[in-house]
């Protein structure tokens, strides 16, 4: 593993239309898991295109031990763009450095995460680099003609659209976090770390961060592995209590449809769907959720879907793996009881 400090001029040697670039995310010098998920997307693309995988990280001081992890998860080269001014993300300073960097290395393909960071900086970069960007891709593939085929849900998730960016480069896409798993770590994997000292910014950032209030350690619906979602079928807010207890007992987080949130039964942070959050848990249990398309758009990427609803024609049954047609208030007490038995269900 080499460790160089280089100037902008020598970046041109890394221009290759076949390489797949990812924009990794770090916070306080620590790489976020989503960066490794991006590598899991990039590695198969690089196999298809016959190129290498390049990871770019921007920050103030990025330790070798962290950068090396990108190599262990699939990167062939890691570019660390550093400056004391980059301790916190600010759009103007970060984009200025990245635009200059990408203008020099001219990536053919650039992927980032559809996080609050990626969803802000990627369109900002795409505009300046005069190229196309596809948000929230569920599938990426390289064609024989060096085109990245970018597939994303359209029209509320009922239709998938495959999008290309034929003439402009880089071909840019974001993918949702938790939408794939990182590759297995390979501690022996070899790669190169290239450090780039960014020029001091021409002016101070327009953004001053005064205070940071971290989210409580509590799991949110976006990173939960299990979700119990409630719909209008719960009838009233008081009925939430046993459902909350049930969710807690199986280690699940409570989610809701828009109707439940609009009625004020649960906060907006619980809302799943087009106007709420997209979730990718291993298990989704819908109680009294009919499955309006706006809701389905936010949860159909769940690995396994269980639905309990009185209406046999509820659309949610069309995408469920296991459905019970019946009253959730009949099902819930028995289900809670049976799941609490450590030995599992006894034969009836």
């Amino acid at each position, binding site marked *: 593993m080499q460790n160089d400090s280089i100037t902008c001029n020598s970046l041109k040697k890394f221009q290759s239309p076949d390489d797949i670039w990812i924009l990794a995310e770090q916070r306080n010098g620590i790489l976020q898991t989503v960066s490794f998920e991006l590598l899991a997307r990039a590695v198969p693309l690089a196999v298809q295109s016959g190129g290498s995988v390049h990871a770019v990280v921007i920050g103030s001081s990025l330790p070798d031990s962290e950068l090396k992890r990108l190599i262990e998860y699939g990167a062939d080269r890691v570019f660390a763009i550093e400056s004391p001014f980059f301790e916190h993300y*600010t*759009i103007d300073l970060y*984009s200025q450095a990245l635009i200059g960097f990408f203008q020099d290395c001219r990536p053919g393909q650039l992927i980032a995460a559809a*996080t*609050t*960071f990626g*969803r*802000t900086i990627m*369109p*900002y970069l*795409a505009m300046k680099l*005069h190229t*196309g*960007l*596809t*948000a*929230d891709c569920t599938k990426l593939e390289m064609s024989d003609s060096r085109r990245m*085929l970018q597939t994303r849900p359209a*029209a*509320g*998730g*009922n*239709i*998938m*659209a*495959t*999008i*290309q*960016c034929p*003439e402009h480069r880089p071909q840019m896409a974001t993918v949702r*976090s938790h939408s794939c798993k990182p590759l297995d770590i390979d501690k022996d994997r070899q790669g190169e770390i290239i450090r780039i000292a960014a020029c001091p910014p021409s002016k101070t950032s327009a*953004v001053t*961060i*005064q*205070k*940071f*209030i*971290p*989210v409580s350690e509590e799991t949110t619906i976006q990173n939960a592995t299990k979700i119990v979602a409630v719909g209008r079928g719960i009838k009233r807010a008081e009925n939430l209590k046993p459902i909350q207890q049930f969710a807690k007992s*199986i280690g699940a987080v409570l989610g809701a449809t828009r109707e439940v949130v609009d009625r004020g039964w649960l906060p907006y942070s619980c809302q799943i769907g087009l*106007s709420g959050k997209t979730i990718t848990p291993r*298990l989704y249990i819908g109680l009294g959720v009919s499955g309006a*398309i706006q809701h389905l758009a936010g949860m*159909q990427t769940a690995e396994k879907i*269980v639905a309990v609803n009185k209406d*046999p024609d509820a659309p949610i*049954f069309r*995408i*469920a*793996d*296991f*459905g*019970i047609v*019946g009253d959730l208030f009949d*099902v819930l007490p028995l*289900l809670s009881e*049976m*799941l609490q038995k450590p030995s599992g*269900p006894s034969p*009836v």
Partner: protein
Amino acid sequence: MLKIALLIKQVPETGSVRMDETTGTVIRKAADAIVNPLDLYAVEVSLQLKEKYGAEIFAFSMGPPSAAAALREVLSMGVDSACLISDPAFGGSDTWATAHILSETIKKIVPDVNLILCGERATDGDTGQVGPEVASALDIPVVAYVAAVGGLTETSDAKELELTRSTEYGQEEIRLRLPALITVLKSVASPRLPTLDRKIQVRKAKIPVYTQKDLHLDPGNIGLKGSPTRIVKTFRPQIIRHCTIKTLTDESSLQDAVTSLVTWLQQKELV
């Protein structure tokens, strides 16, 4: 006084979206077009800033002539003036071309804009890209996912707005030097309803329309030709779930259904 630009999009009313059972596509009727619900939060923020600090609010919308209805609606909420950007030559624009057209129009109509406000994203396209792209085209900073807007401070040479930005890790309290663009979340304000008086006032209001003739944009930067991206294929997602359905009729069917569900969950190692 602040000069505020609002970016408004007319979208299909998703609450009334119906699926075509045979083709699986969404049936849309022109009559169901509404103001993108998430834009209303940006409108409300602009009105509150106007009430507190004084502002002139300009709403911009790009779309077909029928999008004038969306602008009329925000005018009836209290926005000062509106501008429809409409030309067949703009049709087929992707987010890059749309942001280009919007930013060029803003430059022309409000060259001294202090603040551009947008909803988080449009409920139809769902990309959330146009806001940051407009900021980039105008070379001003963007703060997306604003959860709260605080006070405005003005010194002789700068205007600064206090904001709370929501991130995956927590909330950032920031001071943002204007001019800038922000995209707001629902938590930022509760949109007011249009007043009847204003509704009557704006019913016949003529909404100025800006066309390619007024804007003289490079034809290579607008419409389909100016769009870097192309949709090459649309298809219906294949649902390959094999659903086990248990229907409850009596006490024993309940026992049976729940038992098989528990067994199924255990087999899949989900509990």
